[in-house]
């Protein structure tokens, strides 16, 4: 018999109190004496050669302490996780408008910004390339010397020709998705301070401290132990505080060591939107062959991702796409090619979903088209083709865990009344407003998979009074990792959550645990925290056995006390056991290290056990479509996810609500637009996120099938919740109107006309004169700092 468990309980977030009372310290809140302010001079052209940079006039401005260019970088001038080609500062060439050209540190932000205007840069403008398909042409301008196509992943399974030959029908469609901004509420910020024994200490809004640290050390040419990165409380990331923060850390460190003073850097929203990477736009050609009974016998898929100016995470993002490009559907013959291509647009990288929202939009649209073609319906066609336990994926991986696809699909469909409504809405609707329901589902590989090493550390240290300090190499960015890990430790040690203090990650105090990405926080960080707590528990029970004379096997920690396992009689308080451990000189810390199970990958044919386990989810949307204006209102939404085990049900539901809101923005509103590689909007007045009036009440259903790979059976939830909302909504629009949108977002124009409006120069003669005046005016207020 076990004492009551804390697992799954909607415990209050451990960081909530500090945040709602304003005590939380975000990176911009850190200030120290003698700090300087650092700013970046950014490129003026999307593609140009830098002929000359002259900073003398800027240096002469009183209050300016340093003006640096790429030449002042003592170590490596570029960084990158896979391909090291991202410039800390542009050396001889700028490749997009967000590129940094020079740095200024001055006694105030105002002086620093004034100095930017005094730096003379001579450019030789080069032709730019603005879309990935033209960038693939042999005569396209080259963004990097080795050519523009820098990633080509493939999956080959069965025989694609035979597959199509056996098909009764073929569906071929082209889909396009858009650039999307992460839109974390907190823009990038750091404070870099000179280390007492050399080196540098950086406190900042950093998502992946260990990879940023590697780049700072390499840029400065010093050892990792001289570079200390500390995570400030983060105001959201969604995958967006990786490379852009690495660049900022490197720049602040350079200014700091060059001046000997602390240097603060904070991006304005406009700077953040201009410089930071986005979610990849994809162009996707899907060709499926199927039998009349709905069996899919061939899938030929070609995706081209716009990588923008730098490689960033593109190789990994597109790898997840190639693994998951067929969706959770059985098919014997698959041929998938995914490319990533350089352009002079803003570079693209990690964003919640990481290569899945794009392909899921295509897959789930195709599935509805297939249902339509064979006279079935969206639910039945998915149930027919969907994975069951033991199924073999496109990459040849046998799914040897609880495959809950059918369960999540049926629960989503039932909750919204899918089958009846879908039939009813297809016919006989009159009036301007038409209603529709849509369904989408997915399977998703958990954690990094065969991307690379996957391990994490956590340290649990029980204090002499029985309170607990927990630190981890997995970071909290607002997603709730510290609450999950605290709850796991509380479960193992039998103490209330209030007794646990989580420390923000410090690279000098915990081992490199890889990045906090890929929805791996709970499964990796949580597993490490569990192991660490179990080590401490073993010590404490051992001491407790000596204290009580009862064998440790008959003792339990629970309810903040030492319990007799037989009758749950409290024998001593947790604090007393902790104090006794100290008196006896026993160690009360535990180092937990968790390495993920094995994965494998053969890049040639794209075969292997890509991920050690998968999660399954289904979304159902109900919409009202105004067929006279193209306006879509989502009126109901059901989100169902198998998370393995919910460590904290409130946190899981929070992820589901946020994921749907973000997915709704992706489906209907958000689009970071470029015109000739120049961003068209740099703040939230023009980049449209959904508001509270646009997001319906989301009904959440948590499904639990405990997986041996995770702590207490927990898997992932962060990204799955964000990857199928858009297709569910688009499928609902198609149900309402009988017409499908193949491009995202499903804006007013796309829903009404089937395509977006393309701005052209032609204007009516009467208006021309008036508009010219207007345009001059808007241009003035439009130009960002560049």
């Amino acid at each position, binding site marked *: 018999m076990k004492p009551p468990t804390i697992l799954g309980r909607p415990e209050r977030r451990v960081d909530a109190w500090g945040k709602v009372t304003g005590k939380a310290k975000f990176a911009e809140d850190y200030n120290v004496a003698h700090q300087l302010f650092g700013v970046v001079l950014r490129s003026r052209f999307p593609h140009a050669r830098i002929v000359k940079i002259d900073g003398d006039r800027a240096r002469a401005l009183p209050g300016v302490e340093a003006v640096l260019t790429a030449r002042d970088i003592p170590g490596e001038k570029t960084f990158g996780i896979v391909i090291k080609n991202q410039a800390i500062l542009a050396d001889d060439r700028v490749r997009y408008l967000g590129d940094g050209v020079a740095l200024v540190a001055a006694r105030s932000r105002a002086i620093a910004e004034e100095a930017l205007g005094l730096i003379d840069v001579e450019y030789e403008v080069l032709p730019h390339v603005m879309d990935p398909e033209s960038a693939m042409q042999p005569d396209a301008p080259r963004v990097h010397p080795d050519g523009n196509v820098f990633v080509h992943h493939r999956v080959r399974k069965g025989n694609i020709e035979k597959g199509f030959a056996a098909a009764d029908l073929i569906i071929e469609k082209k889909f396009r998705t858009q650039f999307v901004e992460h839109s974390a509420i907190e823009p990038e910020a750091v404070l870099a301070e000179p280390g007492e024994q050399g080196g540098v200490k950086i406190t900042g809004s950093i998502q992946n401290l260990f990879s940023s640290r590697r780049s700072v050390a390499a840029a400065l040419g010093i050892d990792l132990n001289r570079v200390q990165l500390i995570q400030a409380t983060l105001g959201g990331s969604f995958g967006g505080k990786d490379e852009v923060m690495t660049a900022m850390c490197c720049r602040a460190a350079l200014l700091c060591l060059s001046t000997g003073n602390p240097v603060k850097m904070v991006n304005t929203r406009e700077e953040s939107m201009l410089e930071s990477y986005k979610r990849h736009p994809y162009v996707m050609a899907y060709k499926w062959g199927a039998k009349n009974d709905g069996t899919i016998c061939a899938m030929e898929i070609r995706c081209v991702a716009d990588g923008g100016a730098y490689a960033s995470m593109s190789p990994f993002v597109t790898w997840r796409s190639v693994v998951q490009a067929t969706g959770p559907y059985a098919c014997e013959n698959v041929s998938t090619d995914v490319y990533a291509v350089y352009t002079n647009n803003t570079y693209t990288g990690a964003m919640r979903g990481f290569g899945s929202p794009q392909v899921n939009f295509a897959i789930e649209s195709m599935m509805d088209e297939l249902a339509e073609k064979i006279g079935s319906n969206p639910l039945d066609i998915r149930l027919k083709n969907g994975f069951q336990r033991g199924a073999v994926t496109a990459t040849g991986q046998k799914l040897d865990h609880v495959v809950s696809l059918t369960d999540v699909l049926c629960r989503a469909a039932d909750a919204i009344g899918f089958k009846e409504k879908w039939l009813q809405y297809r016919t006989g609707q009159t*009036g*301007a*407003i038409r209603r529709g329901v849509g369904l989408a589902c997915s399977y998703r590989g958990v954690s990094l998979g065969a991307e690379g090493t996957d391990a994490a550390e956590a340290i649990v240290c029980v204090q002499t009074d029985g309170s607990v300090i927990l630190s981890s190499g997995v970071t909290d960015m607002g997603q709730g990792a510290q609450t999950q890990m605290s709850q796991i430790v509380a479960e193992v040690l039998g103490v209330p959550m209030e007794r646990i203090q989580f420390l923000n990650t410090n690279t000098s105090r915990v081992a490199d645990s890889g990045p906090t990405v890929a929805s791996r926080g709970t499964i990796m960080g949580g597993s490490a925290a569990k192991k660490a707590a179990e080590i401490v528990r073993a010590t404490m029970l051992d001491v407790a056995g000596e204290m009580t004379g009862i064998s440790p096997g008959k003792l339990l920690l629970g309810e903040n006390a030492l319990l007799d396992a037989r009758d749950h009689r409290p024998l001593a308080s947790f604090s007393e056991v902790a104090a006794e451990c100290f008196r006896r000189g026993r160690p009360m810390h535990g180092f937990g290290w968790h390495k993920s199970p094995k994965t494998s990958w053969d890049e040639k044919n794209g075969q292997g056990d890509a991920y050690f386990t998968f999660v399954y989810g289904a979304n159902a949307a109900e919409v009202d479509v*105004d067929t*006279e*204006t*193209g*306006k879509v*209102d989502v009126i109901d939404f059901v989100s169902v996810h198998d998370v393995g085990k919910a460590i904290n049900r409130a946190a899981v539901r929070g992820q589901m609500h946020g994921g749907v809101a973000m997915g709704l923005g992706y489906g209907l*509103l958000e689009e970071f637009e470029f015109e000739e590689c120049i961003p068209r909007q740099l703040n939230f*007045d023009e980049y*449209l996120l*959904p*508001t*509270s*009036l*646009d997001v319906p009440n989301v009904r959440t259903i948590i499904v639990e099938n405990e997986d041996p790979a995770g702590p207490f059976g927990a898997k992932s939830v962060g990204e799955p919740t964000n990857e199928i909302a858009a297709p569910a909504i688009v499928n609902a629009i198609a149900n309402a109107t009988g017409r499908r949108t193949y491009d995202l977002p499903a*804006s*007013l*124009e796309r829903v*009404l*006309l089937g395509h977006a*409006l*393309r*701005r*052209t120069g*032609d*204007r*009516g*003669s*009467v*208006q021309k004169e*008036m*508009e010219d*005046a*207007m345009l001059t*005016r808007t241009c*003035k*207020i*439009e*130009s*960002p*700092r560049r």
Partner: protein
Amino acid sequence: MKPFSYFVSDSIAETLTRLGESGSRAQIIAGGTDLLIGLRRREENGPESIIDISRLSQLRGIRLDGAMMHIGPLATHREIMESDQVRTHVPLLAAAAGSIGSPQVRNRGTIGGNIMNAAACADTVPPLIALGAVVALSSAEGERTCPLSEFFVRPYVTIARPGELLTRISFPVLPAMSHSAFIKLGRRNALAIARLSVAAILTFDRSGVTLDARIVPGAVFPSWKRVKEAEEVLVGKTPAHGLFVEAGRKVSGAMIAVTGRRWSTEYKEPVIAALVQRALARCVATEPVIASDRFSRETPDRPDCAEPDTSQPAS
């Protein structure tokens, strides 16, 4: 942001003196919901001085004087949307003010600012023009008045001279047996600028025949105007679905006559027609503006609309 000097005005006279001295180098701040965004974006050409008029209580308030309503330019969108007088006598203006931005923006933003900023998508302007509003401009030299329909030159440009301050907005309240509607189409349900909008007023005689029709589309023309050719379709007739469709077509036709066929016409042409039709249908579906005893006991002749509009988005 370029440095500027900042004056907080205590009186209209002082404001006018300062405005007179600085001319176009000065800008006025009331709610600041447009100006601050502009200041943040503008690197050069920002104002040298900013005159804060937010404490001039004489410029606040909503007052009904007989059949005339006077609105102080400092009345906030929230005050307008919540005013019983506005809601009773000119409900389309309350609807327009309520459609602006978010609660925060409506708490700060003023009707005077909405007019003076003169963006093509200003939400309160179509109803005001439909109501025949007149604005008063004061300067050190004195006061002049101007119909709002003649006030705008083109987007962001008005006839107000440097040194002039908007001090009053006046219009006759809607006569009995008038029905009005304001419809706005935005890309999202809050914090949305109008993609297109329509203000419509229909006034009927006792037999239900349209005596007067006013239709002012928003974000359609370079500056606002009533679309007479659409209004003429309705006057002298009993309202009917077919007439509303025809009026909608006239509005999109008038738009194309001014702007020509542009890249956005493919979308705007059918949609503005639909919105006009919808606004007119909503007019006949609403209670007349004055719900005093005299009228509320009488059931107004509800003209039959071939297709009752059951599908209006919440505004």
